[in-house]
């Protein structure tokens, strides 16, 4: 749902006229407005805190790979 809305937002960013019409229509239905905005505002605050071996900064990845390669040695 969130990613769908995200792409819709990107799509509409390039079509300001259509975007205006849709936004004006949604403004008139506060419950829908709040719901859509709540979905768009959902964030994963701590994603950066998790250490993901597949998504490391370059420096850390080099050290990680060196360590892993050396520990694989018989």
């Amino acid at each position, binding site marked *: 749902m969130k990613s769908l809305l995200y792409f819709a937002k990107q799509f509409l960013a390039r079509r300001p006229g259509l975007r205006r019409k849709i936004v*004006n229509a949604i403004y008139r239905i506060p419950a829908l407005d709040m719901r859509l905005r709540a979905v768009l505002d959902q964030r994963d605050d701590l994603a950066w805190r998790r250490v993901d071996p597949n998504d490391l*900064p370059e420096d850390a990845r080099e050290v990680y790979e060196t*360590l892993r390669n050396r520990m694989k040695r018989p």
Partner: protein
Amino acid sequence: MKLLLDLQGAQSQSRHRGIGRYTLALTRAFLDRAASEHDVRLLLNARFGDQVDALIATLGEHARPTHRLVVEVPEGIRAQPRGNAWLRRASARAMRRAIENAGADIAWYSSILEGYNDDAVLPEAPPAGIASVATLYDLIPLHDQDAYLGHPRIRQWYGQSVEMLKQCDMLLAISEWVRQDAIQRLQLPSERVVNIGAAVDDWFTPPALDPTASAELRSRYGITRPYVLYNGGFDARKNVPALIRAFAALPEALRAAHQLVIVGRASQEEAAQLVAAARKARLPAESVVYTGFVSDEELIRLYAECALFVFPSLLEGFGLPPLEAMACGAPVIASHAASLPEVVDKRDALFDPQRADDITACMSQVLGNAHYADELRKYGRERAAMFSWKSVANRALDALQELAHRQSRRPTVAIHDNPLAREEQLITDISLMDGKPSDEDLASVACMVVSTRKSEAMQRWLVDVSSIAEKDIHTGVQRVVRNILMHWFTSPPEGVQIVPIRFARGRYRHARRYAFELFDRTGTPLPEDAIEAINGDVFFGLDWVVDTIDAAEPQLREWHRRGASLQFLIHDLLPVTLPDTFHPYARDRFDNWLRRISRIADRLICVSRATRDELHGWLTSNRLTYQFGRSPALAHSPPGVDTTASPSQIRTELAAAMQQRPTVLMVGTLEPRKGHDQALRACELLWRSGVDINLVIVGHFGWLMESFAANLAKHEERKRRLFWIEDADDGELHAIYQASSVLLAASWGEGYGLPLIEAARHGLPVLARDLPVFREVMQQRATYFKASSATELADALRDWLTSPRRPDELASATSWPSWKQSAERLASVIAESP
């Protein structure tokens, strides 16, 4: 002397105990005393983020980025529970290397006994080439191993910590008793253990007389009579049941006239033991009061107003509660065990804690003799005054200087001086450790290793382009981003590496694709890897990233802790200064963004002085909680002006109208604050009174102007004397500027005012509302009006049209900064120390 002071004792769970208070108080006093003569750096554990913030706020300049080393420590390295032995050992080894890298003469550990139930980590062995010093609070668990070290994992953890203590070059004991105990139990040479003592915090003084506060305090805890007070812990060595028995054994008249007030946080088991002791001693229920935890403010009043403070502990490293009580003016008696005679130092105020009758006798002596009690109060205050943190800091400094002197005379041990060689050795050591770490463990250790590297020679500016990298829709803000970044890339500030970054998929990453696009490069850009800031980096929020700030803020806070400078560009404050002209949702989003960046920023740079002044007012009236307790520095740096485009044809019907009559031009998005509606009503008044002019509005539709746009569409003067051009390109706009008579800047608020500059550069006179920002940008090059109504604006327009005033000093192209000059000015502001 270069000293690295490990402050984990003030960050870990110990921060809730005496160790944390001792560490913080001594650190403050020590830095005040030693920082001017010696190079003192602080080591902090990033895992305790909020405590890092609090310490930086408390220690101020002493904890500035150049003087702090914040180490990224893996999560879950505590000794309890088990299953993480490899990660714990690898982290301890990496911590040793981090300390070696700091290049200090001495590393001083505020507390060695850390990391049992939190993620504090100490080196597994003293770092090479550096003298190791540790504060020693006590070795009490070695006195009663069954009670304190019963669990095998605690015993192992404590044993490793004691081994580290033994290997330290010097221990700073908090009392002579602790010193002697360490010499004896650890079999250390006496010169390796120095007594530096302890002290009481300044705020422990007799409080001002306040009968209302006293009555409230007594009422809150059910204190109805004069009372005997105890404050402290409740483990067996504290001997509190003996105090309860001794109180019960007081002569009946004394006991009935007093209550026993017991202060401190007791576990359920401990509380039950106390209640059982009171029941066994046949004390009436109301004669013993358990307050639980009390604030310092309440504790000070309880100390000051008690009839007697009794401290019956059997083993004590120092004995802070009796000293606090003495400082607050309480008559104090204490056991003659361990360090307590050093604190109280009055033979007749000491008792044998093993004998309840001796405690009773000592209590009776004070409670039954008001004169003696007064004498003890006076003595206590005089005695407490001898214990100051300044003295403790002086003794610590003397000991450290002596150690540094001894070390300098030692033959130098060959160690790896090259950081790369040290890192290589570290990686080799870790890879040879027994165990089967997971990929996540290896990745965590890799991040820790990298976080301890020294800063690069070239400073990095991590420039946030999150919004424009996602989609460039050619807003005014994005024009600034594009131009500044382009100039910084082509001629970077000296000694600076420009790194565009964007927040995506939960963290900051390189924005390499956007950098490629900016220069119309072809080919495949490098992957958009995650990026981490290090000490010395600058993060610059060039883009307006309202969509990502909520998720990005925690990472920015972490970068700030590590020593990166956080700076942001602010284009305007319009949603907060003119809230009615924005949709509530947009207003709230802006307010949220502004609050978040203001709390963490070192510096906020506005595009105009007027906006900076507004921001100063906003910060003053919105007392925010800043990350390091300091509000951001404020600065301003104007944006650049585009080079003039070649004029193109004006559309036919507009060109014809502009040839027939004078033209009032308005340039800007259709939005409520721009004053279009007032301008149109003013022109309608002029048209009705026979003034023949055109009103030309150039700008896209913005927001909240639907009815105005509808009015324009059906206006009787539309395409005769009223024109709304939504789609003018730069060339046509240039031609319209040239063919107009005056630019009307009727806006109620602006961040800068680029159309005014563009008009002036085309030789077009400017009639502007009298706003500080317009005065700042245009100075004498515009005519100003104050019009709260359409009639007043019509009068101002009529006056101007009757006698057009062309300011003498019309702008030349060099009157306002070019983008190159703007980029250079902005860079020089960022480079200044905040």
